């Protein structure tokens, strides 16, 4: 099983964004995360490493990167008619599923870590005051955990949408819409609450009552549960007999 997963990963790694037409899309998609990793540290200075601002990057980067690569890996493989041949081999369903998911998650998470490092370098270069600035340990831990769980969440959801979509593009669009709409609604609700003085006061009261660590723990717990549920669903649905007829 381990060797089979590594074999699938070898193929997936070679294929990441090498499909015609996908490279430009990937470069375009990288624009926002890279901008975040450079502009925010430039503007915020020490705040970038001391406040939860970098969590925004830890959310957006894996979402975009895994959100592009997973549909390409699953729906794209079916769209390009290479899936039946892969299914006609001795590889187990799980080896194919895990090989593809791990590659995509490793890619999305790995690039996110690089972007966080770029942010750190940027803030040190732009705001050098004689000593090296580092992420606050709790922030760094939150960044690492949060970005990994978002990558897993996107991968799990991406597999499920890919199994239902006719094309990789359709899967990407549906996935992005579903994953981006809840944070946008949340943002809208927060702005609406903050619009009135009483709402703003109540909101600040709630925020003052809970610590950053508590908020992060709740988010991590929710993400963890969602990740497990989606992974189980993906394992249940990624079956040869179903895929060959898809």
């Amino acid at each position, binding site marked *: 099983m381990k060797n089979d997963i590594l*074999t699938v990963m070898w193929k997936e790694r070679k294929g990441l964004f090498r499909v015609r037409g996908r490279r430009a899309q990937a470069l375009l998609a990288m624009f926002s995360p890279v901008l975040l990793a450079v502009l925010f540290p430039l503007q915020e200075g020490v705040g970038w490493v001391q406040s939860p601002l970098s969590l925004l990057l830890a959310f957006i980067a894996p979402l975009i990167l895994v959100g592009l690569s997973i549909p390409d890996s699953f729906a794209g493989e079916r769209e390009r008619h*290479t899936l*039946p*041949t892969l299914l006609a081999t*001795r*590889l187990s369903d799980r080896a194919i599923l895990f090989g593809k998911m791990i590659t995509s998650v490793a890619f999305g998470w790995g690039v996110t870590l690089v972007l966080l490092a770029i942010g750190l370098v940027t803030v040190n270069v732009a705001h050098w005051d004689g000593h090296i600035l580092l992420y606050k340990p709790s922030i760094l831990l939150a960044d690492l955990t949060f970005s990994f769980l978002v990558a897993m969440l996107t991968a799990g959801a991406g597999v499920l949408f890919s199994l239902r979509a006719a094309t990789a593009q359709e899967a990407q669009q549906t996935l992005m819409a579903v994953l981006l709409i809840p944070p946008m609604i949340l943002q809208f609700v927060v702005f609406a609450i903050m619009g009135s003085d009483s709402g703003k006061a109540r909101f600040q009261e709630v925020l003052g009552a809970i610590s950053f660590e508590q908020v992060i723990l709740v988010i991590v717990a929710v993400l963890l549960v969602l990740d497990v549920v989606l992974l189980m669903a993906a394992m249940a649905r990624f079956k040869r007999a179903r895929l*060959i007829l898809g």
Partner: protein
Amino acid sequence: MTEAAIRIENLTRDFETVRAVDGLSLEVPAGIIFGFLGPNGAGKTTTIRLLLGLLEPTDGRAEVLGFDTRTHATEVRTRTGALLEHTGIYEHLSAEDNLEFYGRVWGMPATERQARIKELLTHMGVWDRRKQPAGKWSHGMKQKLALARAMLHRPPLVLLDEPTAGLDVMAAVAVRDDLASLAASEGVTVFLTTHNMVEAERLCAQVAVIREGSLVALGDPDDLRARAGGPRVEIVGRGFNDDALALLRARPEVTAAEVYGDHLAIDLHEETDTAPLVSLLVGAGVAVEEVRRGKASLEEVFVTLMEEER
């Protein structure tokens, strides 16, 4: 290995209200190229998927290399190579990487894998282009690459779903030649679906004909031709007229006589002396240039079988 590479008993597969494979029973002897013939939608691709254990039969069973496809599908897939209806080639990968990947899938050691890739690509005359992305290759070359992939791990059985479909004449001939020489040199059993009768006639030691999922004929191509068509005489010449044809059709040994341009095809009940027939035609004013004995082509047999079923 068992004596029969494939043993199918009453194999049936339904898709909702459609019966794709209907009580199919046949045996494929080991070491031959077996042609599985049928028109589009006859159930050929479904049969291949059933044999690979990718689909479960609704009824009946199939045994491939001694393994039940329902209970031992992984064992079946481990010992077979397949070229399905699409080549399954990763176009962004080089030809070499395509084979490298599948070599790893089959668990071939690195040195054996590399030697085998070189052997196959050299055999097919594409070794020099191994570093190119497969997407830049012609359809015929991709088909060759897919054939190489199916043969890569030296499986005792290869399942090929219309390997020359969509190829031009030269590419089809090249793929057919590669298939014939590889099958002969490696002693592999080949289960080949096709609706190309010329291909079946040239390559296959045995053929099965299916229509709407059911078997309608099974045997070697010569037997099928003899069974369906009987002996035939073809005459090339000029001046085939109605009187000559009427005289010919009145002869007891003649079952049919039809003119196709400058050809006259005469179907006979049994092998007989053709000299009286030629004399009769000459006497009726026909200028005879050439006389050939023969049998119905497999294509004619196929058409007859399809029409009989209707």
